[in-house]
C-alpha cells in the first residue's frame, strides 16, 4: 500500500487560512517526488465548505475532522481530535503551515504520540529514498538539513512563503470528502478562550505602501529614527520597523513588519540596520526590490537583498537623503 502524506489545512472561525494552499503545494511536490499519495484534512466544527474548497485541488481525498468542541480553537481539543484521527489513519507524513496556531498545538500533539515535529521548514529533498527537510537556523545565518530519526507519522511545518500557494494544482475531478466525527471527552479542554480582537485601530496600513523605509536594531537609539524618517519623507515613502524597535516603543506597533506585524510587498523596501531575522523576512520578502544597509556583511538580510550596502547607516543614509532631494528638485 502506498504511503500517505496528509496536509492539515488551517481554518479560523470557518475561513480557510490562505497559507494552507502553500502547504498543499508542498504536499503535491513531496507526493510527486516520493510517489506517495496526498490527502488533506480540515479540523473544526462546520467545516464542510472549507473541505469542499480543498477538494477542488489535486488531492486523493479530504477529511473533515469534526466536533462541536473544536470551536473555538483550543490546543487541547485540536491535539485530541488529530491524535484520534492520525492514530486510526496512520499517514507517513503530516504537513502543516508554520502558523501561530500550529505552533500552539502541534508540539503537544506530536509529543502525545511520541513523535517529533521538524518545524519552520523552507524546503525538502528526496534523496536515496530518504526525505530531507531544510530549515533555517541561527536566525537564517545557516540552513540545516534535518531528517526524522523516529517512527512515522512524521510531522513537518512549512514557513510562510516557502512554497507558492497559487501553484497548488487543481484536481482533474473533485476529491471525495469524508466527515470523521471525533469524540472529545469532558475535561480534556482546560483553556477558555475569549473573543479574538484587534488592538485599538490599526492606524497605519503599510500593505498598500509603494516605498517603505524600515529600521532595525542598527539604528541604536530612538533619536536616530529621525535619520530614517527624513529618508522616508524624501522618498515619499512610509516608515516601518522590525519588531525590537516597536518593542522598545521607538515606533508604534502598527509600524511593525513581520510575522507578528504587517506583511508588505512595496516596489522598494529599504532595510536600514535590519539583520533579517526570519520573523522579519517573512513579512517583507515579497517586496519588488530590496535595498539593505547593514554593517555586518554576513547579515541574513543580504541573502534576499537586490542591492547590498555594507557599511555604517549613519554615514550612508544622510547623503542618500540629500541626493534624493536634489534629484527630486530637478537639479
Amino acid at each position: 500500500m502506498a504511503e500517505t502524506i496528509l496536509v492539515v489545512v488551517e481554518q479560523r472561525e470557518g475561513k480557510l487560512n490562505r497559507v494552507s494552499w502553500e502547504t498543499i503545494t508542498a504536499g503535491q511536490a513531496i507526493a510527486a517526488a516520493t510517489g506517495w499519495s496526498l490527502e488533506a484534512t480540515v479540523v473544526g466544527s462546520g467545516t464542510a465548505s472549507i473541505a469542499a474548497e480543498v477538494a477542488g485541488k489535486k488531492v486523493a481525498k479530504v477529511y473533515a475532522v469534526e466536533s462541536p468542541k473544536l470551536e473555538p480553537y483550543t490546543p487541547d481539543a485540536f491535539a485530541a481530535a488529530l491524535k484520534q484521527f492520525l492514530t486510526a489513519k496512520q499517514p507517513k507524513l503530516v504537513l502543516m503551515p508554520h502558523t501561530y496556531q500550529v505552533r500552539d498545538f502541534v508540539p503537544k500533539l506530536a509529543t502525545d504520540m511520541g513523535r517529533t515535529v521538524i518545524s519552520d521548514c523552507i524546503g525538502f529533498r528526496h534523496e536515496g529514498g530518504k526525505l530531507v527537510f531544510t530549515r533555517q537556523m541561527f536566525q537564517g545565518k545557516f540552513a540545516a538539513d534535518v531528517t526524522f530519526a523516529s517512527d512515522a507519522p512524521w510531522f513537518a511545518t512549512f514557513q510562510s512563503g516557502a512554497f507558492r500557494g497559487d501553484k497548488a494544482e487543481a484536481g482533474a475531478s473533485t476529491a471525495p470528502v469524508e466527515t470523521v466525527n471525533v469524540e472529545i471527552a469532558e475535561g480534556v479542554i482546560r483553556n477558555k478562550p475569549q473573543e479574538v480582537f484587534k488592538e485599538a485601530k490599526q492606524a497605519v496600513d503599510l500593505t498598500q505602501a509603494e516605498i517603505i523605509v524600515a529600521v532595525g536594531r542598527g539604528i541604536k537609539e530612538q533619536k536616530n529614527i529621525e535619520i530614517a524618517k527624513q529618508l522616508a519623507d524624501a522618498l515619499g515613502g512610509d516608515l516601518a520597523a522590525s519588531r525590537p524597535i516597536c518593542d522598545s516603543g521607538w515606533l508604534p506597533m502598527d509600524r511593525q513588519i513581520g510575522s507578528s506585524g504587517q506583511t508588505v510587498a512595496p516596489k522598494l523596501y529599504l532595510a536600514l540596520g535590519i539583520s533579517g531575522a526570519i520573523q522579519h523576512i517573512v513579512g517583507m520578502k515579497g517586496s519588488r526590490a530590496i535595498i539593505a544597509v547593514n554593517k555586518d556583511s554576513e547579515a541574513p538580510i543580504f541573502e534576499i537583498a537586490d542591492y547590498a550596502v555594507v557599511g555604517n547607516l549613519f554615514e550612508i543614509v544622510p547623503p542618500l537623503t540629500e541626493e534624493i532631494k536634489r534629484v527630486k528638485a530637478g537639479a
Partner: protein
Amino acid sequence: MKILVCMKQVPQKDAPLKLNESGTWIREDVSYEVNEPDAYALEEALRQREKHKGEVVVITSGPARAQQVLREALAKGADRAIHLEDDKFVGLDAYNTAKAFAAAIKDEQFDLIFTGLQSDDYGYAQTGVILAELLGWPHATIIMQIERTEGGIRVKRELEAGYFQFVDMPTPAVLTIQSGINKLRYATLIGIKQAKNKPLKKVSFADVQGAVGENLQKIEKLYIPQKTKKTEHIEGSPGEIAKKLVDKMRNELRVL
C-alpha cells in the same frame, strides 16, 4: 506564586559564526548572550513575584559557559538557579531538552513555567509546549500579558496580523513569552553582589540520563544557505553610494 523560567544561552546577535569541521554545528569560540525572549520571560516572572510574592527559579542546560545566563538572572532578582551542565545538552532536540528539564524539576512544585517563545539558535518554538505536555499541564503560547484570576490566570495571546485573544486557564501551566511583553530591567550593583550568595544547583547529564533518549530528529548538516537572489553590492564613499543608489532607484526600480 512559584515560577520557573527556562532560559537559553545563544550566540550574540551580530557574532560572526563559523561552521565546525564536520559541518554539524557552529564553532563554539563565539560570544554568547541570553536568548532575547527568555530575558522577557524572566522579567515577567520577576514582576509577577513583585505583585503576588513567591519565588522565581531559573533553569538552563548547556556547558559551563551557560552559567553566565543564570548569574545574570540571579543578579536581576531570581531567587535560585538550576544548571543542567554538560556539553551533551547542546545537541539535544526539543523533545529531549524538555524531558531533561522535566526530570530535573520532578521534586519541585511550580505554579507557572515560562519559556521564551523560541530560541535564536535552533528556532524550534517547541520546547515549552512539549514540556507542558510531558507534565500534563495546560499551556498557552506567545503571551503578551498575564493576570491572576480566581483559580487560575488570564493571559493575552498574540495571534497573527495584529490580532489578540484573552484566554482563561487553570494553573499550573506553561506559558511561552513574547518579546516586548514588558520593559527589561538592568541588574543593580547590589543585585550583582547578592547573586554570588544565591543557590545554584548543578545537575549532571547522568542525573537526567534515564529520562533522555535518542534524538527524534537529526541535523545531518549545517551550511551557508544558497542564495536564490542575485545581489549587487554597492560600494564606494557615502557620497558615491548615494549617487549609485539614486541611479538604481531612478533607472532600474523607477521609484523616483
